[in-house]
């Protein structure tokens, strides 16, 4: 003879499974929230660095263009050649800032994908696969300055000024290597 418990087994199991799925989904949202809270200041820091770099390049360009345009005899051909080199260097800010903004855009795309996956509900496997995707953002960096900025932004004393990407560190390696 079947016990009362055996007869009701199927019905009792369903709420337990549903509860576990809901808890997993809750944890997925919390994980996402934690990652997003950490990521947003990093992205803001990257965008602030882009602004700083643009301003710095503009100032540098103006200074060197004034030298190039000057008719003063105190400015030598060597000075003009040096200023021209600096203009070429400063003009490259566009390529560097473009890459940084592309990485910010990539991170925002990941955030969007993550939210979309979570909104699909607790029964969707995609949501679980998206967990921790935000932690992979650092891997998209191509510049040492971006990695330094990321490290600075994720430390607990983040309120300190974030290093500018144009700054060089004492131990910075030679920009040219011949193999």
């Amino acid at each position, binding site marked *: 003879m079947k016990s009362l418990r055996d007869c009701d087994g199927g019905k009792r199991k369903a709420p337990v499974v549903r509860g576990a799925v809901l808890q997993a989904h809750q944890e997925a949202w919390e994980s996402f929230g934690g990652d997003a809270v950490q990521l947003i200041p990093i992205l803001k820091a990257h965008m602030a660095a882009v602004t700083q770099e643009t301003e710095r390049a503009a100032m540098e360009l103006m200074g060197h263009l004034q030298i190039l345009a000057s008719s003063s005899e105190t400015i030598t051909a060597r000075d003009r050649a040096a200023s*021209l*080199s600096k203009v*070429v*260097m*400063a*003009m*490259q*800010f*566009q*390529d*560097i800032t*473009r*890459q940084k903004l592309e990485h910010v855009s990539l991170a925002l795309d990941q955030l969007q994908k993550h939210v979309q996956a979570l909104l699909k509900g607790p029964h969707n496997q995609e949501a679980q696969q998206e967990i921790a995707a935000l932690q992979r953002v650092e891997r998209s960096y*191509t*510049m*040492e300055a971006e990695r330094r900025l990321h490290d600075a932004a994720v430390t607990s004393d983040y309120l300190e000024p974030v290093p500018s990407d144009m700054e060089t560190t004492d131990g910075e*390696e030679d*920009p*040219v*290597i*011949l*193999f």
Partner: protein
Amino acid sequence: MSKTALIVDDSRTMRQMVSFTLTNAGFTVIEAEDGRDAVRKVSAGTKLDIVVTDLNMPEMDGITLIKELRRLTAYKFTPILMLTTESALEKKKEGKEAGATGWIVKPFNPEVLLKTIAKVLPA
């Protein structure tokens, strides 16, 4: 006779900056916007004295481009410089293994670029 340089970069600004630097130094310049475009432009066996290529590009990246060029007899020993914002050691190793001659981190100084090219060009 002027030397020929192939410049490969998906950024038009960068291509123009490198092109400006090399043209002023007497080079004839061929520009390509990524690795695939570069391979297409040199497939006819164009004489190249130097290649300056970016790393991260759509369609075909710089490392793949180097491997493609090194497979061709005409470019087996052509100096190839990577010019990129990437400075990670593992990427540099990857470039060296692919057959790059040197690695320059952006932003580049035109004088340094020209000196580096002079060092790697055959005498």
